[in-house]
């Protein structure tokens, strides 16, 4: 069975590697865009007690309490109904951004909330405005707690790309399905994709460890 999987991988490596490439691209784009969304939403929720903050809270709650598949379908079927046509790949990236953005915003908000209030008070007393307060005082101090969580979210994003299978994007799960349909060897085909996911995860975890040991966040830590 394992040797079947090994043979299948070499025989259909183009399909699998295209799947890996698409999955990594979608997850990477999703992470960058979700970081922007997450930072924005997190900061809004941290600073605003008004209507905007409430709207963002509803967004986060909706994303966290509904399946990603429903969100993917919502965007996949909803955008064309609004007259907007995106390719399946970009639909997927949009769904991943929408989803991960909410989770990252919670990490950002948590990181900002964990900073002692004295920092804000001191910055305001020194005459810093809201923008400078966030950019120069709060966000740099939140980064050491938020960034490790965000790298964890990237692993989650890789796993979430499997949902793009449902809208026919060639990613790792779809690659296994295609190979299975062609050869009728479904189990070995999926075993290959399983190993691919684990391999990506191992590499990512190694990179995260390396990055965390090199980043030298300890110098930012308050006594």
């Amino acid at each position, binding site marked *: *069975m394992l040797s079947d999987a090994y043979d299948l991988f070499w025989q259909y490596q183009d399909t699998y590697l295209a799947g890996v490439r698409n999955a990594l691209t979608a997850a990477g784009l999703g992470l960058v865009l979700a970081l922007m969304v997450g930072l924005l939403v997190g900061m809004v929720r941290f600073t605003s007690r008004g209507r905007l903050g409430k709207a963002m809270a509803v967004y986060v*709650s*909706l994303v*966290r*309490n*509904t*399946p*990603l*598949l*429903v*969100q993917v*379908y*919502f965007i996949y*079927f*909803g955008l064309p*109904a609004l007259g907007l046509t995106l390719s399946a790949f970009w639909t997927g990236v949009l769904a991943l951004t929408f989803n991960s953005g909410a989770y990252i915003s919670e990490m950002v908000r948590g990181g900002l909330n964990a900073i002692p209030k004295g920092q804000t008070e001191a910055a305001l007393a020194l005459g810093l405005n809201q923008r400078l307060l966030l950019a120069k005082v709060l966000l740099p101090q939140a980064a050491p707690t938020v960034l490790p969580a965000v790298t964890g979210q990237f*692993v989650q994003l890789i*796993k*979430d*790309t*499997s*949902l793009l*299978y*449902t809208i026919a994007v060639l990613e*790792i*799960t779809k690659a*296994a*399905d295609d190979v*299975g349909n062609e050869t009728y060897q*479904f*189990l070995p085909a*999926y*075993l290959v*994709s*399983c190993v691919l*996911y*684990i391999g*990506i*995860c*191992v590499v990512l975890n190694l990179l995260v460890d390396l990055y965390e040991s090199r980043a030298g966040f300890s110098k930012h830590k308050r006594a």
Partner: protein
Amino acid sequence: MSEILSTASDAFRLIVTGLPIVLLLTFVSFFPALGIGILGGLLASSRVRALRFLVGIYVYIFRSTPFLMFIFLVYYGLPEFGIDIGPVATAIIALSLSHGAYMTEIIRGGLGSLDKGQNEAAIALGFSLFQRLRDITLPQTLMAIIPSLLGQAILIVKDTSLVSVVGISEITRLGREVVIRTNEPFVVFSLLALTYFAVCFVLETAARKLEVKARLVISGH
């Protein structure tokens, strides 16, 4: 407008038929997953290094592979071994094994945070290993981690949306069929999202309420 209303009533009917499947799958998968989690958590806290290593591999595999791929693996894998059990049992096995890995981590953490004195006192009083687990350590651990377990139940509810790929007609699949027929994605998927939201919200509220209670129990009140 009347079209939207008829679509809405269509979707509503589907949710009434589909929601019990979601709740049933969640309920039926939760307890095997908890059982796996307790076993895995105990093995992961054991003194035998080989056992800890094996449990570690199990958890690592499930944390790094997506559930959607895993359910296909079970679906195509079991028949290879001559086991033919149908899609519902396949879904339950896949959900249990996958969430059992996450619950292993939760229970390992719970056991680790339990005061060592509890176990030491029980040993001093002459309790056997089984008695210690049944009467002392497991009840306290489980009480403390109920909120995390309910959080995991929310993840199970969300993962049930994926079992349609092996041919189970749960609400996400039924909703998709209505959308393809009626071309009213917003009405149908909003109702669908609200249904999941309602189920998860109930679980989340329960988790928050129980968290307060669990904290009281742990602090000995």
